[in-house]
């Protein structure tokens, strides 16, 4: 196949003269390098404005169970190995949570227990952006819907630095509700 307009690869392809082809390759590989190099860390992404702080309301807590004391007669009727003095249903109480920010309600939520029979943990995770500075934070929680009012209350004036994360959490070992 010796004749002119063939472009079979077994003949010499009608490509560019070698120096031009090399220049072309340098150009394309250069563009590839620039493209990967740039977008692998640019443009910077602004996730949180510099004057903002973050409030994370993040709770995971088991609601109360409505337990009842068994009478001695009841206990006597039960097989020996099942004589638990308390009779507890599987289901747990939902948890009532209220958060006020600077006197304005921010969260007024009832956290249902998870699990098919409502016997699981109640959780909440919420991320709120705030301007940095002083805020009055009031958190109220009740883990037993039968009881009126709020068993746990925490109020505090917090001073948030820019970028600071304040977590509102509950942990009995930390004395109930706590800010961190």
């Amino acid at each position, binding site marked *: *196949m010796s004749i002119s307009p063939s472009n079979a690869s077994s003949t010499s392809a009608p490509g560019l003269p070698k120096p031009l082809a090399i220049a072309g390759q340098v150009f394309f590989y250069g563009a590839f390098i620039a493209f990967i190099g740039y977008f*692998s860390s640019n443009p910077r992404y602004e996730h949180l404005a510099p004057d903002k702080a973050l409030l994370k309301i993040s709770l995971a807590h088991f609601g109360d169970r409505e337990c009842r004391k068994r009478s001695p007669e009841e206990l006597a009727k039960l097989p020996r190995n099942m004589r638990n003095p308390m009779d507890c249903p599987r289901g747990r109480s939902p948890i009532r949570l209220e958060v006020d920010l600077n006197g304005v309600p921010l969260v007024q939520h009832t956290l249902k227990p998870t699990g098919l029979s409502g016997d699981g943990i109640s959780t909440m995770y919420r991320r709120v952006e705030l301007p940095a500075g002083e805020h009055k934070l009031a958190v109220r929680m009740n883990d037993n819907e039968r009881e009126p009012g709020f068993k746990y209350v925490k109020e505090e004036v917090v001073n948030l630095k820019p970028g600071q994360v304040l977590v509102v959490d509950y942990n009995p070992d930390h004395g109930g509700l706590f800010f961190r």
Partner: protein
Amino acid sequence: MYAVTRKLAGQVFQRMEGHLDVVFGHAANPIRHMGALVFFFFWILAATGTYLFIVVDTGVVVSYQSIAALTGWSFGGVTRSLHRYASDAFLLFAVLHLLREWALDRYSGFRWYSWVTGVPLLWLMFASGIGGYWLPWDRLAQYSAVATAEWIDWLPIFAEPIARNFQSPDAVTDRLFTLLVFLHIGFPLFTILGAWAHVHRISRVDHFPSRALALGGGGSLLLLALLRPATSSSPADMTQAVASVPLDWFVLFIHPLTEHFGAGLMWLTLFGLTVLLLALPWLDRRARVPVAVVDPPNCNGCRRCYDDCPYGAVMMLPHPDKARREIAVVDADYCASCGICVGACPSSTPFRRQEQLVTGIDLPASPINQWRERLESWLALPAPAIPRIVVFGCDRAVPLAALAAEATLPLSLTCVAMLPPAFVDYALRSGADGVLVTGCRPGSCHYRLGSVWTEARLSGARPPELRSEVARERLQIFWADAHEAHSLRTALEQFREHLQDLPLSSVTPAFRRRSNIHVHQSV
């Protein structure tokens, strides 16, 4: 609308490929070998990753320290940078590879398997990539980990939000880190297993780039690693929210999108897109062309069709009628109806004296006999005063019908490799002055290997060879993708000018030697 968009996208790809052929040559053209490049980048990731796994400690504090120390032009620094940039290229080229297969209409029919097995790879690749950014445990890692956890928590999977694992310094434990490392090894392992499944049905997989392309691609990443070594930002600090990050947009673009559109919408979009991609081969269903059929008396078990089939659709089994011989058997599920096997079969030679040319393996929708008849009846017409050219081409490249003229016979096969080389010889010995063979450029072939096999057969490098006695100055190969009608026409006219310098054919047509030949006067 959909078909038009896809066609346009296909033309964009083919034009770019054509231009890059000029610069790179088709063997080193990156767009033509994107699947191979994706594999290549994976191997770079595996090699650099193994080294990093050995030298990096896992733990909340030590991970940061041991990875942040890997920077600059030290061996560890370059390895780490290569690992990062190879992951960008890996994801980028996988997505481009998907786009190209789609744009060139390579996802439906018999290709459903390649397509469907490709889709989950994307999930695995992105999961590997995102998880990789957590291991340095710097501010970027913190941002990505928290963003991912908050995003996953939208799904009702975990009873307790996993974002709580990242809400305070003491929540992030060394155990969590061991899990992350485990995942960052597990996802890539599943990726490569999946990639193996993805290509295992096709034969002669283009799974490694040519030396020039490997040098170019690997060298570019190395140069980038030297120019811009990867660095860590400050250590993660769960008490401080991340304000602004140097995001890797190839891997982590999902986070800003999620922040902007909301977790729910992003899940919906991704799941929807996945289902759509998985269903695409069937949504766009077309009439199925009958697959290749073997004729046992004409099959001698030579295995040429088995060797040349691009889709591994031919099996060799014991011949039912010929002792100690094999026979080709076509697996209809794999067969692309491309006809490449017809061009490979020695029984396809038109010199055989049967009235009806029956070959060993044939396409029912476009049997080889029909092509011989069309050729013969055209050559039986009175010859004009200018050189007569037979153009063998294919349905996927430049449409040939417009070339038809008194001195030009275009024959459009399903794939140009359906052409048995003996047909070139036969045409020249039956009155044609020249034969032009055209089809998709190598690397563009809709059936992967058609142009490559054709060129090899015609140049004598692969059986069935074109006899060496055939006058090579009367044969022309000109590859042209679908949009290159103009250059094909120019090549044809130049070829005719060239033939004008040679004597016009004065042979007795080969087919006259067959008895009672009946030549159709209509073409």
